[in-house]
């Protein structure tokens, strides 16, 4: 019997080999800003858990390397990830000296690479399983629940990023809600303004090129510059338009951040609306008119439902883009997770940067998965009819 290798498995096994034996598993620092000292798996964990973890990782990597049944690969990925997630918390308490509140333990490159490698394995398995949209959302919910339970249980509390969180628990949730409000609010505004604009561009050909070009240009302005550019006009509005200031419109703060995010969101929404409407089969439109639909009935009964998956794709782009871009809003006092990122950069405290960055990714990733699932659900049965 010949041994057969899995192509992706070779890559995964190579990453795992390097991460488990050559790269540091955790970093120990005497306080939050001094450079850290690397600790390997065997150094970072008590002897009773370090060797078993290595054994689990090597076994999982072997399963990934060889051509094995999907269900086995799935189990290997889940077990390896769960072991890593649990034991990094153990490393945190094991490495922290008794009664020392200044020492910081954080996951190091080896840990992140192992997480990456096994996530790759799981992603590959899930793709090959070809799950239905609902099943994908189910997997997401289970993963989120597992991470949530680890957070609540306190097993990660000795890790540096959660120590930063413990110091800032109140402001964390305030900034989180600002972040979500900014990202979703600007998206909602962009959809409310962008859909009619897209429909107008579709109907009036003369308008199309002009509007899309202007939006394209806005899209190319670097985000920091756009935030800056908005300070002057919004400051002017605040001082000269009665009532504007009391609505919260100022040169800095949430208003310019909101406006900038709104402007960035317009292009994907408008462009995808135009593309979606243009993709509606001519014959279907002609038949709709020929059978006596009014313009409204045709728009809402035929054009819109057929363009919907494409429009939704635009909304997905905007959502993920906004969740990321909102971090920059902190620069002009807009709030959000960016506050921690910039504070952390200022204090050279990487853990604080992570406290801003990790939740941002944790928001964007599920948002993408959920919207992808919704797009697939709305597209079923609506594929373009083949010409007879």
């Amino acid at each position, binding site marked *: 019997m010949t041994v057969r290798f899995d192509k992706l498995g070779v890559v995964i096994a190579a990453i795992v080999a390097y991460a488990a034996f050559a790269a540091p598993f955790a970093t120990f620092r005497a306080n939050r800003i001094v450079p850290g000292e690397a600790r390997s798996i065997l150094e970072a964990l008590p002897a009773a858990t370090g060797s078993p973890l290595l054994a689990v990782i090597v076994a999982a990597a072997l399963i990934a390397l060889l051509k094995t049944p999907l269900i086995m690969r799935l189990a290997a990925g889940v077990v390896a990830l769960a072991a890593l997630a649990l034991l990094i918390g153990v490393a945190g308490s094991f490495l922290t000296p008794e009664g020392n509140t200044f020492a910081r333990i954080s996951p190091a490159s080896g840990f992140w690479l192992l997480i990456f490698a096994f996530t790759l394995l799981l992603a590959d398995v899930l793709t090959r399983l070809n799950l239905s949209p609902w099943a994908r959302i189910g997997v997401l919910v289970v993963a989120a629940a597992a991470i949530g339970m680890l957070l609540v249980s306190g097993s990660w509390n000795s890790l540096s990023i959660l120590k930063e969180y413990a110091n800032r628990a109140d402001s964390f949730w305030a900034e989180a809600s600002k972040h979500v409000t900014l990202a979703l609010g600007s998206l909602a505004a962009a959809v409310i303004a962008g859909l009619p604009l897209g429909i107008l561009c579709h109907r009036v050909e003369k308008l199309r090129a002009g509007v899309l070009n202007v939006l394209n240009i806005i899209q190319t302005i670097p985000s920091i510059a756009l935030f800056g550019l908005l300070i002057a006009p919004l400051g002017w509005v605040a001082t000269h338009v009665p009532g504007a200031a009391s609505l919260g419109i100022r040169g800095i703060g949430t208003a310019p951040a909101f406006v900038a995010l709104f402007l960035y969101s317009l292009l994907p929404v408008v462009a995808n609306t135009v593309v979606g409407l243009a993709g509606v089969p001519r014959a279907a*439109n002609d038949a709709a008119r020929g*059978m006596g*639909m009014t313009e409204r*009935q045709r728009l809402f009964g*035929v054009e819109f439902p057929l363009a919907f998956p494409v429009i939704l794709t635009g909304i997905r782009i905007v959502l993920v883009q906004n969740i990321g871009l909102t971090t920059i809003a902190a620069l002009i006092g807009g709030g959000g997770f960016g506050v921690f990122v910039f504070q952390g950069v200022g204090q050279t405290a990487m853990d604080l940067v992570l406290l801003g960055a990790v939740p941002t990714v944790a928001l964007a990733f599920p948002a993408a998965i959920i919207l992808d699932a919704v797009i697939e659900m709305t597209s079923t*049965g*609506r594929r373009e009819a083949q010409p*007879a």
Partner: protein
Amino acid sequence: MIEIEGITKRYDATTVVDDVSMVIEPRTIVVIVGTSGSGKTTLLRMINRLVEPTAGVIRLDGADNRSLPGYELRRSIGYAIQGHGLFPHRTVAQNIATVPVLLGWDAARIKRRVDELMTLYQLDPQAFGPRYPHELSGGQQQRVGVARALAAEPNVLLMDEPFGALDPIIRNKAQEDLLAIQKRFGTTIILVTHDMEEAVHMGDKIAVMDAGKLVQYAKPAEILAKPASAFVETLVGASEKPFRLLSLGRVRDAVETGTAEGEAIPGDASQRDALAELLWSGRPALPVKGADGKPLGRVTVGGLVKRAARPA
């Protein structure tokens, strides 16, 4: 009755339809033939006002077609197009129900009508009703397209190259189905095509259009026998003329007394089919049988050839 009077359509400087007048009798099939760009589709689309004429009047049963809002007019006229134009996001049953829903029929009546039409078109309502158009074959899609056009029992049905995208065998079947349904419902059908064969086969009358003008409007036999211009002559196809003429006649009308050997041909078959069979089998005569299977007599090569000659 549809009266088209002095209808003209201009786009800027281009005249697409030029002063066309014709009368379409109720319960007949009129086929509008022409090359692409002849204005035939534009003429058709002015009847249900998908295109508004620059000048002229179209009256349906005496009433100007502008006396109703366009969308209400269109709900009362069936409309079927090439490539069927089914809504890909709606099921077959929902597609067929489009106009009845627009007209606000109650659910039970819509379901009855949809089931009736699907059965008529040999599509099992249980099996095909909940399917989406992309799950059907081309021929089935086309049948659903025509069923949808007929859903609200229109007196008039407009068809723009409805069979253009079908392969020859399915097209023949679709044509026969349409003829049968026209007989059953007595619908007035105006059908646009570029295919003279289809026109001769389907039309009670044929309207030939060229460069926006109505060149000739007559019964198929007359178009074949007395083409009004060189253009019509080309369209008819000089070498095809005798065969097209034969295709208009039934075998029963060419029967002579006497008997012949071999398999009998039904009296309903076209004279063209009979001639083809005679030539192919190398026989001088064929027996003819009636619908009840009784012998009617025979057809001969000589007799058919005489009938294929230009009428005096």
